[in-house]
């Protein structure tokens, strides 16, 4: 693909804000998406192992339902977090995104139904396991496989989108146009690396889990110790696997000595040490977030370089500044999102730490955050309707 075509594929409306902002938001939100993808896959996978131990082992008896529940919630969250990078990527990388989607149109359609079936089966697994200890093995395995397949489809879209030089060959092999939408591409090493991260992520999750429950009297010390050491084992082994696959991937695309790649290697080594010692897993989690951001940046760097080498730089995308809507976003994101989500998470944390019914109305932080959230939302509605009426009156009177 030469530059003139790639540039023509940009939307003539331009971008409503500086491209670098979209790029940064993409890197940030994809890291969040990935974090929950990995937590979902990790806890699901581990819970399936657990179904075999749950009946006889008192620790797994308690832990496994929690793992299943974690998987369930994580899937919901990974979906909603996936929306954001989806949005930002197509603002600045139109050629890549739209070509990949049209070439893989059938897979796009299949992806959605794969997810629906996989997730509903996961609920089935959850209920089956709730009913009988160790139940739902087969359903669990199938739904896990289906959700992994959804990840492979995601990977196909990502990889196809960064192969601009092969697009023409995919669309019209030997000059015969193929509108069927069955294009499928894979890069095994990249995929293996991405998926392998599920193991250390669930390891670190278990360390956190153990730490969180250690203050609750209704969980035995034995339970707390076991989950911590299982987390450590998974974390260490998983990180080693991920490190190897990462190095292979970087070697394959010739980025191993790039500063960003080296930074990731250092990050992984630090993680390895932290996980091994397990002094404070909350700090480990912080480092994990940083490493996730670096990995997300690495993906973006690869794409950026491929496109820049062909003469497509997102930084040259024409900007049509659009102030009111970004103001709306920033205020909503920072104020409503910040306060609202803080309220929800504070509440969840306190309920989790509490035995029995938690009285939020007696908790100052929970009460205040709740009242603020409601007030902000009402105010938001007022501004929305006010703004809408102002615009409409202005335009039709």
């Amino acid at each position, binding site marked *: 693909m030469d530059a003139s075509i790639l540039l023509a594929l940009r939307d003539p409306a331009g971008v409503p804000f500086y491209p670098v902002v979209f790029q940064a938001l993409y890197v940030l939100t994809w890291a969040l998406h990935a974090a929950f993808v990995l937590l979902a896959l990790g806890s699901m996978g581990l819970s399936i192992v657990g179904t075999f131990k749950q009946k006889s082992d008192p620790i797994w008896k308690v832990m496994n339902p929690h793992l299943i529940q974690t998987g369930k919630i994580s899937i919901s969250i990974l979906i909603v977090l996936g929306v954001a990078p989806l949005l930002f990527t*197509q603002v600045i990388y139109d050629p890549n995104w*739209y070509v990949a989607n049209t070439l893989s149109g059938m897979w796009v359609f299949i992806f959605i139904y794969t997810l629906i079936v996989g997730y509903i089966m996961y609920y089935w697994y959850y209920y089956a396991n709730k009913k009988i200890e160790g139940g739902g093995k087969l359903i669990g395995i199938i739904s896990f496989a289906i959700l992994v397949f959804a990840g492979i489809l995601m990977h196909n879209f990502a990889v196809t989108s960064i192969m601009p030089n092969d697009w023409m060959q995919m669309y019209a092999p030997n000059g015969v146009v193929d*509108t*069927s939408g069955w294009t499928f591409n894979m890069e095994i090493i990249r995929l293996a690396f991405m998926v392998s991260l599920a193991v250390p992520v669930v390891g670190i999750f278990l360390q956190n889990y153990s730490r969180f429950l250690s203050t609750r009297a209704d969980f035995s010390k034995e339970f707390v110790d076991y989950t911590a050491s299982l987390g450590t084992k998974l974390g260490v082994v998983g990180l080693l696997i991920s490190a190897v696959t990462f190095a292979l991937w970087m070697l394959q695309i010739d980025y191993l000595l790039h500063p960003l790649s080296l930074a990731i290697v250092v990050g992984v080594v630090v993680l390895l040490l932290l996980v091994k010692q397990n002094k404070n897993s909350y700090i480990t989690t912080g480092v994990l977030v940083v490493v996730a951001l670096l990995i997300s940046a690495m993906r973006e760097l690869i794409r950026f370089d491929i496109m820049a080498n062909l003469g497509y730089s997102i930084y040259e995308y024409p900007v049509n500044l*659009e102030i009111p809507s970004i103001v709306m976003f920033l205020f909503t994101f920072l104020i409503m999102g910040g306060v609202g989500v803080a309220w929800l998470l504070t509440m969840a944390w306190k309920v989790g730490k509490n035995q029995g*019914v938690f009285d939020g109305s007696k908790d100052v932080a929970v009460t205040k955050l709740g009242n603020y959230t*409601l007030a902000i939302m009402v105010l938001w509605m007022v501004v929305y309707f006010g703004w809408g009426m102002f*615009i409409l009156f202005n*335009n039709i009177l």
Partner: protein
Amino acid sequence: MDIIGQFPLFYFPEYGSAWMMGVTGTIHILASHTSVGAAMLFAFLAYKAYKENRTDLYPYMKKYGMFLLIFSYVIGSITGPGIWYTATAASPRGISALIHNFVWVWATEWVFFVYEVIGVFLLVYFIDKIDKKTHLKLTFSFALASVGTLALIIGIISFMMWPGTEAYYATGSASDAFFGTNTFPHMFLRIGFMIMLSGVIGLLISSAMRKENLELSNELTKKMGYISMLGGFLVLFFFMWYMGTLPDNAHAVFNVTKADVIQSRIILTIVFSLYFLLAVVKPQYIKTPLAGAMIFVILIAGIWPGEKLRESMRKPYVAGQYIYSNQIISRDVAGKGIKSELPIIAKKGLLQVNPFVPQNLKVITPENKLAAGELLTKMSCSNCHSLEKTGKYRPLKDRLVGMDKDGIKGILYAMGQGAFPYMPTLELPEDEYDAIAEYIASLKY
């Protein structure tokens, strides 16, 4: 070089790729509208339970919440991106136009989604783990967030129909695009539908708890009957207003099938009025299978045709009345510096300006004429018509039946002149018209 930003074409045989969107869209509408409606209903019930100290309502809310979680959130939150993904494959430039106009609106909606997705789990799982007052606040915030998502998406889908005023074309501003004359009627139409759906789903759940608590089941069934009636009334009321704010091309398409549409809507209204009346007068007659079947009726007889109609009425455009369904920008939008692509296409032809046409088809020759004609037909018509002899989606075979090459050419010329308000004004060079006509004629409809 003269290139326009068209992408590779994805065509789903027989049904067309727009049909795939329709399927996902229909499911999504049921799930998403239920979820917003249910969030409002949930807030109402929680308020009642709290104020009147009706602890017996909480188990119902828990059941309802579980249903909401699994049905609306699992299905709704997947089919949401689902429509988006499929629309991207079927109509990349349509989606691109929306994204580039409204990215911050969507990003704002996303904040609400994040709030909702975390919130729904707390709402359901904390119902007996947290004090009632805090829980009540949670349900209120949840209802507000749900309505917020509607408030944000509604301007975007209304813009797909049309910007509502001329202002957008001059300013290119997202606010002008978002708040058209159509936006608010559309919003309240949907709120009515959401309220109705929340009642309809409520009937399913209240009827299912008859065994456990007969009295409560009957009381709730009655309530749900009233709520559904209220919603239904709002739907009818705002539908009138909504229709009045649609552009002319929408009415042109609507008129084609007006009689049928009105007839089927009258039947639906009567059937549902009777159903809701039954719930109010004889709640014990509302059995779970009936309640389930009625949801299905809404899906098949209400939403699916409604969506098809809305999609049709948008024709020939896919977004903002400046992009045709067949991926061509058809007018200038001065405020954004967008230029119509019709003149260059008329001059050079689609094969030349589309960057994904392979080299061997760029210039029409006697050898490649049929292949070029096929590609051109797919590019120009397949977004709105299926092409096969067995095609299902507004098939060309029914519209060009028995026509020879010259007859087809006549239609194409007329299209080039803009003779059909519901079809693109697609002017092409003579050799491209000829290739299309030859290809279509070769199919012998």
